């Protein structure tokens, strides 16, 4: 037993088929997938077994003379023939050249008692048949065959199938619809023996052969090899033998059969999942799409809005610290509408908000993920489209929570008070104090001229009063100016803070998107790519 020297193509194609079978579940029709894995198993098993032997099956309807032809070919009455229909219920096998044939026959599940051997070389001029395993199959079209799939199975397993037809049944639907129409591409491993030729006159036979050829061509068998035989008179048996001898000596039938089967399967696969343009579909998530996803997720979290809110709230709150106190005090004098509604605590509550809450909105995150999957799977086969969507959504249940939790860590605190606010506040109160002092001075100067407190002449100096007034005005102006300026500083700082915050949030969103969305999607895209690459390789 030597290992088969397969054409390099076959091994590769089988490998491609293996890949397809591996990736197929859930994506290919179960039936097709089952066929593919059956073929894969069969190929593996057949290639492991003797390549020195060629399994030739005689198949056909009941009464076509399979057993008679089997006997005629083997030259012995090995398989019982009869007039009762159906006659053969179990497969008979005749082996030319026993060595290594037993495992093959085991694989074919031919019963021991139905195995026969020809000591090949010793036989008259039959050395060219050495390596032939001839099978006489049960019929496939009788009422018995309805419950017996042996013929069906062996027609699949045999390396070369000889269809035994007869003048009565050669156009039966049971043969043609079920088998012959599946034979396109199998020309090299299919022979049609038109048996019982002795029942016809020469002209009739010629007409029939032409008719049969036409019929087969119509069904896609491009170059049918039709051999008229007669098991009774022995006519044509020799030419059938030589056809078989040719196949046996080439030792290629097994591989040709597998190739033809692969071809057939590949065509059917291509029908359900045409390769076409699909290979140009993205195999990874490109930068633009990642950015798009991050943007969409940021929107779902409301990153820009969080930033803006922070900025505005800071600006508002800073006024308490850095605003010109007098204007604040003036504002406070105005009646509060909330107070009149007995809702004072509302404003307290509003001021009591210490952190801005960041949370992702579920619906929008789902939308974002969906959009990504839509973009990626456009043009894909529906099955793959679905699986890409599933992959994208595989963790979308956790996504909003993950986003919320992760971003909450960087959520800005709204009650943060930077040190320079203190400084500014002190400065403001210094100004306020200065203003008050000035006011006092003015009052003393105006109402108690000359009666200044001890030791401070200056206070009593009325001449200084205008200067004091000037100074007070400038303190007021300075206060207002510093209020405006510090507000600007606050806003500047807040917007810088906001930028930093947004950057940080985006970074975190992108990281989460990468692990929770992009990675599963890319895995699926990789599978998609591998599948279609395998399809391509299979077709080669």
């Amino acid at each position, binding site marked *: 037993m030597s290992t088969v020297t397969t054409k390099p193509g076959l091994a590769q194609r089988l490998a491609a088929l293996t890949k397809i079978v591996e990736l197929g579940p859930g994506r290919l029709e179960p039936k097709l997938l089952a066929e593919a894995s059956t073929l894969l198993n069969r190929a593996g098993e057949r290639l492991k077994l003797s390549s020195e032997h060629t399994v030739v099956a005689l198949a056909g*309807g009941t009464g076509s003379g399979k057993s008679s032809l089997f006997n005629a070919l083997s030259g012995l009455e090995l398989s019982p023939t009869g*007039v009762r229909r159906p006659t053969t219920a179990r497969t008979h096998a005749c082996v030319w050249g026993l060595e290594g044939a037993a495992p093959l026959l085991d694989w074919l599940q031919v019963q021991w008692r139905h195995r026969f051997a020809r000591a090949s070389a010793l036989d008259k001029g039959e050395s060219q048949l050495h390596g032939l395993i001839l099978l006489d199959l049960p019929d496939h079209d009788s009422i018995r065959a309805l419950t017996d799939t042996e013929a069906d199975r062996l027609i699949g397993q045999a390396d070369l199938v000889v269809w035994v037809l007869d003048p009565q049944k050669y156009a039966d639907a049971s043969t043609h619809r079920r088998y012959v129409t599946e034979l396109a591409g199998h020309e090299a491993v299919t022979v049609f023996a038109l048996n019982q030729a002795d029942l016809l006159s020469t002209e009739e036979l010629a007409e029939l052969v032409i008719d049969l050829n036409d019929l087969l061509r119509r069904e896609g068998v491009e170059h049918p090899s039709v051999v008229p035989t007669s098991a009774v008179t022995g006519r044509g048996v020799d030419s059938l033998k030589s056809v078989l001898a040719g196949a046996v000596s080439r030792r290629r039938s097994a591989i040709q059969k597998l190739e033809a089967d692969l071809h057939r399967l590949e065509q059917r696969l291509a029908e359900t999942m045409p390769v076409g343009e699909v290979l140009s579909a993205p195999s990874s998530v490109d930068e633009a799409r990642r950015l798009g996803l991050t943007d969409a997720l940021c929107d779902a979290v409301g990153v820009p809005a969080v930033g803006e809110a922070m900025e505005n709230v800071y600006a508002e709150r800073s006024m308490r610290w850095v605003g010109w106190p007098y204007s604040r005090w003036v504002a406070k004098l105005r009646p509060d509408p909330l107070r*009149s509604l007995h809702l004072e605590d509302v404003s307290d509550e509003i001021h009591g908000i210490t952190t801005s809450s960041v949370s992702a909105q579920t*619906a929008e995150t789902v939308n974002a993920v969906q959009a990504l999957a839509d973009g990626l799977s456009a043009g894909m086969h529906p099955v793959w489209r679905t699986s890409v969507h599933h992959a994208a959504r595989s963790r979308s249940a956790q996504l909003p929570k993950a986003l919320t939790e992760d971003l909450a860590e960087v959520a800005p605190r709204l009650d943060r008070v930077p040190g320079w606010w203190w400084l500014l506040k002190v400065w403001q109160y210094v100004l306020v104090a200065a203003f008050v002092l000035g006011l006092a001075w003015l009052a003393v100067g105006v109402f108690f001229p000359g009666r200044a407190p001890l030791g401070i002449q200056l206070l009593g100096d009325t001449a200084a009063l205008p200067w004091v007034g000037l100074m007070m005005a400038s303190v007021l102006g300075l206060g207002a100016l510093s209020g405006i300026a510090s507000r600007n500083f606050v806003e500047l700082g807040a917007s810088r803070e906001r930028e930093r915050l947004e950057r940080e949030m985006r970074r975190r969103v992108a990281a989460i998107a990468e692990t929770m969305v992009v990675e599963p999607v890319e895995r699926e895209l990789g599978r998609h790519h591998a599948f279609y690459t395998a399809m391509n390789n299979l077709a080669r």
Partner: protein
Amino acid sequence: MNTAKDDGRQESPGEQTLSFRPITEEDVVPPDDAPDDRARQPAPEERPAPVEPLPRRKPTSRKPASTSAAASKTPSSASDGPDENHRPAADLEPERKRPSLWERPPSPAEDHAPEPKRPSLWDTRSSPDEDGVPESESKRPSLWDTRSAPDEDRVPEPEPKRPSLWDTRSAPDEDRVPGADESSSDAERPSLWEARESAPVEEQDESSPDEEPEAEPKRPSLWDTRPSSDEEPAAAEDEPSEQERPSLWERKASTGEGAEHGRKTPPGQDERHGSGADEESGARTPHTPAGEKTGQGAALPAEAAKTLMTALDTLRASVAELRFGLDLPGADEARQARADLLAQLQDYVLPRVRTNTAPALIVIAGSTGAGKSTLVNSLAEKNVSRTGVRRPTTGIPVLACHPDDHKWFAEGELLSGLRRIDKASPEAGPDTLIVVPTEKLPQGVALLDTPDIDSVVEKHHAIAQRMLDAADLWIFVTTAARYADAPAWNLLRLAKERGARLAIVLSRVQPKAREVVLKHFVRMLTEYGLGDIDRFVIGETDVTDGRLPDHEVTDLRLWLAELSVDEDRRALAVRETLNGVLDSFRTRVPALARQMESQVNFRGELRTDVEAAYLSALTEIDKAFRNGSLIHGEVLARWQDFVGSGDLMRTIQLRKRGRSARQAPERIMAFRAALRAGLESVIVIGASRAAEEVVARWRRRSPLGAALGAELDRPSDDLVRHASRAIAAWQEHVTDLVRTEGVAKRSVSKLVSFDADSLSLIFMVAMFTGGAAEGVPHRLVNALLGAESLRGIGTKALSDLRARIGMLFDEESMRYVQALDSAGIPDESMATRLYQATYNLEVAR
């Protein structure tokens, strides 16, 4: 006789049987049959026992109650005695005694039995009924005489209806047909007649292949041919022709008698008995020899024919209206079945009923290469049909008939769908029929050579099928090489199912193999229940000029001649096949109706899926509205912005002379937009989930569902646009509501003014925050608007939003409905009409 006791007994029938069986069975039953018999307990009629007393004993041993029922009916001995005493006695009684006890009395009992007797009968019978349905089946044979027995199966009428036989009779009729009811009231002595009539008809309603033997024991006993009734079941099974004949003859006599009795019954009804009986023999024993009931078989009285025609026309119309739009599993078959049915009605049944004196059409069918054309040529002694080695040879059916019959076939309605031509021409289309007259064929029979049933040219199968559907008799041709082919047996099974008159020709038999092949073939036929069919064997001989040597077809020719001469027999054969076909409608039409129903159901299911999916999406959305999940993300941030930046405070102003509250709108706009976007995405997600859900459900239902939903697994492209429009409109609406209805709290409005736009936003946040009304927005709106009007606005706003989303979803789900509609809308009343038509047909027969 009390029911309680009966019930008690019923509970342990097995034990009883066990205890009594050995004795009785060893006496009379062949040991083979005993276990068999018991195994079949649920439906003992499946096969009538071969031995005479068995059919009666079955019920006795198994059904104590029915025994007593029967026993009580017999006027002899202990009918009134305690039941328990009586039954064991009856069981143990030697069998040969039973017949007399059993059979003699019932007929007088039935005809003249005084009313007082009935109650007892009734009492005993009622208990098995109450006990369970399966029992009633096995009870039947013994209860035939009681008339009501067959009804029990079908009409689950409450027992009180049956106290007297007279009631029994009318009760089922009332249930079934007004027509029958009238006729029964017309009848003077209706009891026997009615019982007889309703029994077969109802039996047929159960129409299944196994009805066959069931009818055998029943029918004879209904007529007053008691003795023969026992033979018949046996005969039907084992030796049909010889043994059956006498009984049939007797039956015939009884018919005549019956007809005399029932003189007063209207002709239509009278005829129905005839046809009923006739059809029985046709359906159940296709091999029943000819000779009986010729008059009725051949010439249907005008009125009955008319009723039948009407019923058939209705049926045809109903079937013609059928459309199977959805490609469910079985739909193709149903379409095919519908076409077949229609063709058969038009080609065959209607013409046949209209003119039943027409010559018999014998269709020759079989495998390709079996020699059908050769056979026709040989019988016609003329090359009417081309023969050859090419397979398949015959593509166009060829009809050969006597010149006298030519007109009928050339112009008649039979196979009216086919265009007649004189000889084969290449341009002849598929719907053609070659009609060739030949004097060599006897009058009154025509041979139709058909295309094959099994070649690679599949349209031939359809043509052959159509021809067979129109056949009065089938000749099935097979060969020594083919007789085990699966297609051949499929055809034979069909013939058997249809109850068609059948003859089999086994041709191309090698002389030396003749014995073996024939024996084997006959054995196969017998196993198939066709062992007694007329068979002809033709040897493998040289075919010259497309014909067989004359001696090979002598038998067949004789058979034809016999048919030709014996008009009665021919008419009977014709009638049998017709009845077989009409019988087949009982299953075929309901099968169509069932397909129709399944289409309707399927459509209903798919629609339910759509509704359920969108409903659950709506529920989800509703949940999102309530649990605050909407106030997340941007909406939340914008809210904080709005609140924290002091805009909220600025919204509310103290009312001062003419000062209107106006502030920077951009934050409010952004907030509003965020809210809209949030709502929108909730809706879009809901819709796309629903879309996926629908498609997934459809896919799970069937491949057809997957195909229908192929492009619909996403929400429609317009959805986003429509949704944002709807929400914008809703926001407007809420603002309006706040503005117009929110001014209720006067104490507030005196003090403060507020901006309706902003307030409506606050209100929406309050609405979607859900949970306890604790938060800022709640308190604000509560304080500003007042709890009362807040509640009002809240309800209105929410229901308005729901309505808008509902409309959006309606639009979405319409796409699925349209997809469904585009696949065809099954008419829901169709199935009912079909059932009705079938039923009417049964009545009309």
